[in-house]
Every structure is written in structure tokens, then in C-alpha cells.
């Protein structure tokens, strides 16, 4: 399967501050791919490089076979781009936006756009600046969908949306992807909702990839166990097995890609008493926080 996005050894620095440290991941055709990470993980930098607004300091990033910072118009016509904050020409009306973009995309599908607009029962004579954030998000999504792109890059689709519009957005997206087989790369800060959306994911932490796998595989392999907090547990340090450690008043939680038996053996080797070791069920959000840490 050809990769629609292929990043290899991606590095970027702002002056002397290194932000990305050799990112390597790829996005295959089909499904929804999540680019996740906490604030400051390097997510925005990676997205800006993918979208072509930054040239990486090192490594390569290819989108649909071309360098991301030098995409040809033909390739750009195959990419649907949502910018953070639903950036669009606010001074245009809905119908004007549709008429403006149509000639630039060979596969432009008017019906898809107006189908979405129609569901919101919004007049196409309304200016974008006169709409709420939620309505804007639908119009912008409609414009992207009407392009019939091969690849969609959605940077923080959830920004400024209430739960209702976020659900609406995701539902439309899911429906579209199922119908048309478009590949989607998205980011969002509302991690708990991504559980319903993404098929695969890459998680960034301090400019490095700390997980790159299917979401199901992640949930199946990433575990949380708890045991009584002791001085020995307080002295524990994270490593490849125990990815993060959290101490509560009386309990220590450990997170990592391990089974219950593997963690028990690990703790015994490190002379950490864990007679009361139990496995803790996690939601997707819990697992994400466990992998990336709270701070």
C-alpha cells in the first residue's frame, strides 16, 4: 500500500531550540489517522510541515509523493486542508465560497456541499462572518468534502466547538470517509472523542514518536496497573517498560506496554513491593494521559 504521507527522520528547530527529533511515521491510504500529543509536543510544528508552511531543518516529509514544502498545484488539488480555527474567507457568503473554490478542484462535487449546508438549514446568502463557530465549521467541512480530496488534513477540528457540533462534525466526517474512502489525518485536543473517530494514531512526546500503531492495537497492548505506594515505588524511574508513573496518596500507578505478569516480574526485579498489584481499566483518554503524562 502506498503511503500518502511519509515522514522520515523529521527534524526542526526554531533557532537553537530543537522541537522535532527525528520523527518517522507514515499514513497509509484509507481510514482516519490521529496525530496526538500534549501541548508543546511538536504537534503543531509537524502539522505545519505537513501542510507545507514550514521547511524541516532535517529529514524528509513527503505528501502524495512530493516534498511537503514544495507541493505542486496538482497535488494540492488532491488535499483537503482544514486550518486551526476554521480559517476561511469570512467576507464571502456561502454560495460565493462554493463558486469561488469550484474551479480549482477537478472533482468538485456541488451536491456534497449543498447537502451538508442543507442539513443545517442555513441560507446560502449568509456571510461566513455572521455565523456561529459551529455553523462555520460545517461550511468549512462542506468545502473540504466538496473537493473530493484523496487526503484530508484537519488541524484541530474541535477548536471552539461545543460537544454538539463536535459530534456533528465527526458524524459527517465518518459518513464521508466510509462513502468515499478518503484518508484523513487529524489532530484534536479533545482526546476522549477521538476514540470514536480514529483508526490509527501516532503520539508525540517532546518531539519524538512514543507510539505509532492502530488504536485497537494500542488499547489492547497499553496497560495500567496499580499497587500500594512505598518508598521503593517512589524511587521508580520510567523506562521502555514502564512509560510513566503516577503517585497518588496511597497508590502508585504504572503505565506501559506490558501484561500483568510482565509488570509483576519487572517490579520484583526492581525490588518494588507489589503484592496488591491490580490491572486498572482505562478509557482511551486515560491511556493517552498515561502514555504522555499529566505534566
Amino acid at each position, binding site marked *: 500500500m502506498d503511503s500518502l504521507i511519509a515522514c522520515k527522520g523529521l527534524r526542526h528547530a526554531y533557532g*537553537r531550540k530543537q522541537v522535532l527529533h527525528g520523527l518517522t511515521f507514515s499514513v497509509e491510504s484509507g481510514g482516519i489517522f490521529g496525530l496526538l500529543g500534549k501541548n508543546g509536543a511538536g504537534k503543531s510544528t509537524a502539522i505545519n510541515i505537513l*501542510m507545507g*508552511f514550514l521547511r524541516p531543518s532535517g529529514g524528509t516529509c513527503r505528501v502524495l509523493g512530493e516534498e511537503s514544502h514544495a507541493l505542486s*498545484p496538482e497535488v*494540492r488539488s488532491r488535499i483537503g486542508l482544514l486550518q486551526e480555527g476554521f*480559517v476561511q474567507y469570512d*467576507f464571502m457568503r456561502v454560495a460565493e465560497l462554493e463558486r469561488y473554490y*469550484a*474551479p480549482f478542484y477537478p472533482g468538485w462535487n456541488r451536491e456534497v456541499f449543498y447537502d451538508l449546508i442543507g442539513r443545517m438549514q442555513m441560507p446560502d446568502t449568509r456571510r461566513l462572518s455572521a455565523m456561529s463557530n459551529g455553523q462555520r465549521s460545517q461550511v468549512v467541512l462542506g468545502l473540504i468534502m466538496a473537493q473530493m480530496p484523496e487526503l484530508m488534513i484537519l488541524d484541530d477540528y474541535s477548536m471552539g466547538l461545543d460537544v454538539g457540533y463536535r459530534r456533528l462534525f465527526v458524524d459527517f466526517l465518518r459518513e464521508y470517509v466510509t462513502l468515499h474512502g478518503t484518508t484523513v489525518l487529524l489532530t484534536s485536543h479533545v482526546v476522549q472523542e477521538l476514540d470514536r473517530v480514529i483508526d490509527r494514531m501516532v503520539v508525540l512526546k517532546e518531539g519524538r514518536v512514543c507510539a505509532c500503531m492502530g488504536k485497537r492495537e494500542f488499547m489492547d497492548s497499553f496497560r495500567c496497573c496499580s499497587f500500594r505506594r512505598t518508598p521503593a515505588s517512589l524511587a521508580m524511574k520510567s523506562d521502555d517498560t514502564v512509560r510513566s508513573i503516577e503517585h497518588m496518596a496511597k497508590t502508585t500507578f504504572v503505565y506501559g506496554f506490558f501484561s500483568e505478569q510482565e509488570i509483576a516480574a519487572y517490579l520484583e526485579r526492581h525490588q518494588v513491593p507489589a503484592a496488591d498489584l491490580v490491572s486498572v481499566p482505562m478509557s482511551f483518554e486515560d491511556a493517552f494521559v498515561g502514555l504522555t503524562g499529566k505534566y
Partner: protein
Amino acid sequence: MTKQQLRSLISKERIKLRRGIWLLPMLLLYSAADSLLALHSLQRAYGSFGLWETIVFRQPQFFGRYFLVVVCAVLIGFLQAWPESQGKRLRLLYHTPIEPVSGIAVMLATGTILLLLVNIAATALFLGTMQWFHFPREIIHPAFLTVLPWILLSIAAYYSSVAFFSSGSPGVRLLIGAALYPIWNMLGARGAYGLYEHSIWIYGFVAFLFVFVACYAILHYMRHAARGSAFVFSRMITIILAICGLGSVLLALYWKIVIPADPHTSMHFSPVHRQFVISDFPAGKGAAPDAEPSYLLENGTTLSREQYRAALPFLYVRDLVKWEMFPESIGGVAISALEAERAWQFVRLSSFDWNSPPPMLHMLLESNPAGARLQKPDDFFRVSYDGYGIEFLTPHNGITDRPKSRAFTNALGDAGFIYPIRAVGGNPDVRKRYDVGYFLADSAGSLFQMRMVDGKPACRRLEGHIEGSVRQIHIKEHHRQEYYGFIVTDRALYAVMQKDGALKRIPVGRFNADDLTLALWSDILYTSVSLESTEMNYAGRSGIAMTPDFRVVHRYMQPTDAVYLESVNVLKTFAAFLFPVQIMQDISGSSFRYLQVRYAESVPAALSGSVFALVVFALISRLGFGLRRGSDYALVAVFGLTAVLVLLLSETDSFLSFTRRN
């Protein structure tokens, strides 16, 4: 780009502009109405003739509101650029599946076409207003040449406005300011009509270069990604414009700060001592407010104030009378104080007089008025378009008085005038005591006098031949009635004698007619001339004393003050070091505005300045501001420290990041 895509891009521009485009006709109509009403009120106050007279001789800026075309340009730029660049909207332009340069080109082309339409409309309104009052082309042309710089400024302002509102980068905005501010000063300055006549095309070219400023500002947004040739080229042009602009401002500032105290000296020929006497007025920081000038003879003998004035009895008659020092005779000629007071004439001629827009129209007075005083005529005259005749125009309706025009044209021809007319000169001042009419030079180098006597033409040919190209015919009626006036050509100075109507060449030697100030003093004993120029100022001032029939009796060269000369040379050398390439608008000896670029006079100092600037630039580059382009080094090598400054301004964003990090 397909036709449909082009249509879409144009449609987007239309949508952006529709919000404020209605302001444009309002501003234009306001400009036109204001100009029309200004002329209307002049006409109501002074009549049609008075209106023309005011325009011709006072040159008021009745069309001043047309400067609003610049405001229109800024408005268009704002309407187009601001919505395009808010938040991260410029990213939409870059992601649209066309070459970004194509999108930018459509935006700028739309705005430029709209601006040109605005300017065409403004021109049409201006010309219509002028036609309403029947102004002839001789008035319309120079007046329009005064509005045209604002039209060119509007083009530069439009592109600068697009650039400014498109970019959020402090560095880019500083560059825009550095480029626009000087051209704003140059083209926005008020003055006499038609001062830009000789260089309007150069200013136009520079104004259109600002399109690259707009391209650079928009492409700068993506400077961290792709860097095509369009970005590199537009950056280079923008940087050069900013360097030239900032360089011209800093050079002017430099001279304002360092200008040395200019010793003011005057030189007059003394009929008593038969040599020149010099008065030297102290100036500058060292001089006390009430410091007395010093007075000297040529040989350096110091004179007291009384002795100085006694040496110039014609000039200081009243002082000498008051001091009871007035002599009974001067130079062996018995003369009373009253006679002495009326026995001299002084004329100052300067290349500024002829290196300036010529008079738009002329006014031929009736030389034999009914009463004692001269009266204004009912019409003006001009040289016909092809130079083969005189045309009289009636201000009331702007129509040519064909019979009168034919009569005067034929009268000149009958007197032997060979057309086309090469030069015209007269003194249309009704306050003078008598009128000698106008003097015209024909194509064979002969001089003719043309008067209107009892409404009819009276023309005659004067003795003598004019050599060289006539720069000015200076006519001034004087109670001494010795000269009609003087003629300056590029080779010679002539006096037009009133007694015998002959041309007499004044033996002043060689001079540069484009850089000359000449003072002529004439009394019953001697005629003296002093010449100076910017070039000569460094050698000295030349004085020539002659008998009334222009036989040279004495010559003197007053050397320039050595201290002053030394100061000027040092300052020029330092200016060359700081500004190897110098951009100026004014040139010595001319009222016209010329945009000039020249290399500094002191080449060694200029080259040293370039080397110094390269060293400074290399040191700064090592600090890591991103100034590493080879072309930047080439700019520094040519333009010196100004280029370093501008390049630093262009990287203000990097500089701010650097200071924050350190």
C-alpha cells in the same frame, strides 16, 4: 491557470472591494468640487482675467485636494490586503491549487487596474475643471504636471498599502516604511507648477517598482517553506528601494546636521579705490549675535565701517550724507547726493531663474496708456505651438483673438523676424513707470522688440547677434534707462542697451549657465559683475569691473575661505564614506526636481566605506541573523552602511528572537 480559475480570483477581489469601493467616487467628486469651487471663487473675486493672472503668476495649489488619489490608493490596498491576511488566511492563498504568484498577480492586477481607472477619472475631472474655465494648454499642462506626481505616488502607495496590510512582520513593515517615506516626500512636496517635467518618467518607473514590495511582503509569509525565484527577486528589489530611500533621507539629514557655517561675503567695485571691497559677515557657532562684519580691500587692508561705506558712495548715499561724508565728486565726476541715489542699477541673475518652468503665458501691456499709469490688458499672449506666431487669448472664453494675433505675428515678420521663436522675455508688471514691451529672439540669433502702442504692434530689430542657445531674456525697466535688460545664453552674457537698441556682449569669460549666480552693478562710472557657482565656490568668486561700454578695467578673484573649504572637503569625504552611492532630488542651479543616483565624489573614501560596511556586515552575520545570501554582500559592497542597516531591518524578526534568546 484556467479561465474559470481566473474568474474566481477576480470575483474574490470584487467581493473584497465592494465593501468600500463606494468611497472612491466620493473622494474623487470631493476633489473635483473643491478645485472647481476654488477657481470659481477666484473668478468671482477677480474676474476671468484676474483668475488667469492669479494662476499664471501666483500658481496657487487650487487642485490640492487631488492628493486624495493617494488616499484612494491606500483604501484599495487595505480593502484587498486586510481581509486576505487576517489570522492565517494567507495560508488559504498558498494552499489553493495554483501557483501563489498567480494569485498574488491577479490581486495586484485588479487593484492596479482599479487604481488606474480612479486616476483616469481624476485626470478627466481635473481637465474638465480646467476646460470649464477655458484655461489653455499652457496652463493645463504644467498644472497637470503638478498633479501627476501624486498619481505616481498613489501607485507606490497602493503597492505599499497591500504590502503593509498583508504582512504582520515588523521587519517587512519597516522595509516598506524605509522605501515609501522618501518617495512620499519627493512626490508629495508642494511647489511651483511643472517642477517634475524632466524626470516624471523616472519617478513613474520607481513607483511601479513598488509592485515587487507587495510581492515580497506576501511571499515573505512562506519564506520558511518554498523560496522560488519570485521571492528572491522581489526581495532584492524591495531591499534596493529601501536602501535608496533610506540613503536619500539619511544623506539629507547628514548635511542638515553637519552643514558648516557659510561665510557670507559680498563684493562690490569701489569707484573711489578702483578695486573691489569685500564685506565678510561672520556666521556660525563662534560668532556673537551682534558681531560686526569685517571690511577689506583686495590687498587685505582692513577698513572701518565708515571707510567701507565711503568706498561705495552710490550704495551708501544716505549714510554718507548723515555722516557728512558724502564727497563732492566721485571718480572725478561732480555729482550730488540726490543724483547719486538714482545713478545706479543692480541686477541679480541666477541659473535657478532659467532652470525652472517657463512662464505659462505672457502679458503685453499697452506702452502708451491713456493715463499716467500702465494698465493690465484684456488678454494674454503665448508663442504658438509650432513657434511660428504669437497668439492672443481672451480669458473670458479662452478663444484666440485671430486678428490681433495675425497683426502682431505679421508685424514681427515685417520687421525681419525669422520664425520659429526661440525665446521670449518681458516684464508684465503694471507698477513700473514705463513699458518697453517684450523681446523675442528669432531662429537666426537676432533680437526683436515688440510693443503694443495704441493697440497696434510696434516691432523693430535690434543691432547685434546672439551666440549660443538663449537661456533667459531678462527685461527690467529702470529709471536710468541704460539697459532694456540682459540676455543669458549658454556661452555669453549680453546687455540690451536702451539708448541705441544694440546688443553688447559683457566680457565675463566662460561660465556654466546651469550653475551660476551673477550680480551686475552699474553706475555712471563703472559696471561690475561678480560671478559665482557651486563649482567656482571652491576656487573663489570672480569679479570684473568695466567702463560703461564694457571695457574691462579690473579683474579680481576672491578666494574661498580656506577654513570653510577644508570643512566642506572633510564633510564630503565623510559623506562618501557613509554613502558611497548617493540619491538626490535637487541639483545645484535648478528649480526642477530630478531623481539622480550618483557615486560619491571621493572614490577612495567611498570604497573604504564599502569595505568597512562589508566587515561590519560579516561580523553581524556571524551572530546568526540569517543574513547569509551572497546577494546581500553585493548590496553592502555597493551601498555601504545604509545597506547593512536595511538588511538588519529586514531581519528584525530574527533579531528580536536573538535578543530574547540571549
